[in-house]
């Protein structure tokens, strides 16, 4: 990234575009594929400017045929390209899971390393705007469960750009999960750059470690500002690899852990973190690890119901407070 860029504030959506543009610029093997990512510039305009700049041979519009074009992206990666393929909504893994979990995730291993599948599956989630149950799921836990896939979920413009570049460069298939509720958010590109796999301690605190990612980073920061307890907010950035080192180091100090995420809590990624911390810091924990995710309900359309199901900053703060009260 140029120093000029580093001094800018960018929107999250622009930063993703910047990451893709840099990757396209520096590596001829990079292509962007997906429904209307070309001349249409993407349904949320994430690929804005790319078609004009790189042309239709690098920015490929596909038919509505996810199995074919996601699978083709996997095949192209095997053939030496570095595709960035868009799955428009994360819910749509329902129509193209096979190339992700059974092909891309497995072939490098099954071929004993002879095949590399350097691919980025771009997708997005982000509930809270009445997109309905089929367009609101945050399904990172599903993909994180599959050996061979990395899963990143940037929460800031800087991370969006960095993680995109890192994902493209990675030899493994990487699922890159954007959050559409963050698209319009601005952030400094001067933020410290971290590698894929490293969590970010966003705010230092003493009482409670709050581990979060995606849309919930912002809510946790708001909760930290409420200020009744001193929260250390960790933005995980990637779910796989899971940077337990940073988490553990923090909980070792605070003795308390709250995990807050957008996804459904049951069998969500928070459970893995809770289970690991519960095991590794058994003697050190001052209170039981808490999780705060969406309840076991498909996301309803009604805005008020949707709000009811998404823990807000106040709920996060209240949980942190009661963790402190517990011990």
């Amino acid at each position, binding site marked *: 990234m140029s120093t000029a860029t580093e001094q800018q504030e960018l929107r999250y959506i622009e930063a993703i575009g910047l990451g893709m543009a840099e990757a396209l610029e520096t590596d001829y093997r990079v292509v962007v594929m997906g429904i209307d990512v070309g001349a249409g510039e993407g349904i949320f305009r994430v690929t804005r400017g790319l078609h004009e700049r790189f042309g239709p041979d690098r920015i490929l519009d596909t038919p509505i045929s996810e199995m074919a074009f996601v699978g083709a992206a996997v095949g192209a990666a095997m053939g030496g390209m570095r595709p960035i393929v868009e799955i428009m909504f994360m819910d749509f893994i329902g129509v193209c899971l096979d190339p992700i979990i059974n092909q891309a995730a497995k072939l490098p291993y099954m071929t004993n390393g002879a095949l590399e599948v350097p691919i980025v599956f771009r997708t997005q989630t982000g509930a809270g705007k009445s997109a309905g149950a089929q367009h609101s799921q945050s399904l990172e836990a599903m993909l994180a469960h599959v050996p061979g896939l990395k899963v990143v979920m940037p929460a800031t413009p800087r991370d969006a750009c960095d993680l995109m570049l890192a994902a493209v460069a990675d030899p493994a298939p990487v699922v890159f999960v954007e959050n559409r509720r963050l698209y319009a958010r601005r952030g400094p590109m001067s933020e410290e750059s971290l590698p894929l796999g490293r969590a970010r301690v966003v705010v230092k605190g003493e009482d409670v470690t709050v581990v979060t990612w995606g849309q919930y980073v912002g809510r946790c920061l708001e909760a930290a500002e409420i200020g009744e307890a001193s929260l250390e907010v960790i933005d995980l950035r990637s779910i796989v690899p899971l940077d337990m080192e940073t988490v553990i180091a923090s909980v070792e100090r605070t003795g308390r852990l709250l995990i807050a995420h957008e996804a459904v809590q049951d069998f969500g990624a928070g459970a893995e973190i809770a289970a690991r911390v519960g095991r590794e810091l058994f003697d050190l924990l001052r209170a039981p690890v808490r999780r705060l995710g969406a309840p076991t309900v498909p996301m309803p359309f*009604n805005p008020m119901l949707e709000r009811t199901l998404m823990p807000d900053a106040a709920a996060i703060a209240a949980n942190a407070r009661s963790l402190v009260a517990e011990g």
Partner: protein
Amino acid sequence: MCLIRAFELEVAKLYRDGEIPGFVHTSLGQEAVAAGVCGSLREDDYLATTHRGHGHVLAKGADLDGMMAELFGKASGLCGGRGGSMHIADPGRGILGANAIVGAGMPLATGAGLASKLMGQGRVAVAFFGEGAVNQGTFHEALNLCAIWDLPVLFACENNFYAEFSDSRTLTRVPSVAERAAAYGVVGETVHGNDVEAVAAATGAAVERCRSGEGPALIEFETYRWHGHYEGDAQPYRPDEEASSWRERDPLEITAMRLAEDGATTEELEEVRADAATRVTVAVEAARTAAEPDPKEVFAHVYGD
């Protein structure tokens, strides 16, 4: 048709003004397909439709007030405010719902047709889908399945020539959806979708074939969406002449002219329009003031009970 037109125009306005949340895809310009197809069905026939399904659902007899309230997310909505524009359903009228997953309705309709056949109910299932959805594997798989099982399913394609921002003619070498039916041993036909009588005639015949046990039928209705893919879409991707030439073939005008030829007076026609507008206005008023769903009920029916 007038009701659908009035409904969609109003919805577009409400959406622009921020009164309706979520995503909204209107079917302005495509009213004759909805009216002609659904008007040729029995009340207990099944319907599975798409993100652009308001017209189909209305024409299949769903309650107007319940629909409008659903778009507002209210408790009195057809789905209690849980579904919204992309998920309106009314199972009591055979309406299995709009669907936000492109191509998902075809297997569901296949299943409804299977249920009808196995239980000897004589019900036909209609799957609406856009020409963009034809490239989805479900089209291929579901049509084949219906064909070998001789299921009473009508594959009703609304070919409005665009899938989101793309000209669908560039996304296949065989833009004629009807032609693609041959690969499944199914008869496919193309009908002018803005002519409600042509739509109804073709549908009526196809549905009878379905009901008599001949298996699935496919009809491609050529039509055009007047608005963008979703409300708010600036549509840089469509040539003006194309858009305006289709506006000239307004399905409502075509019908009005025909009715006039058959002796309907201007007043009679105006009355139909006015009546539709009034009903929509009433529905909007009711929806606006309707109660929000009870948050205490938010956990009900997750496991179907």
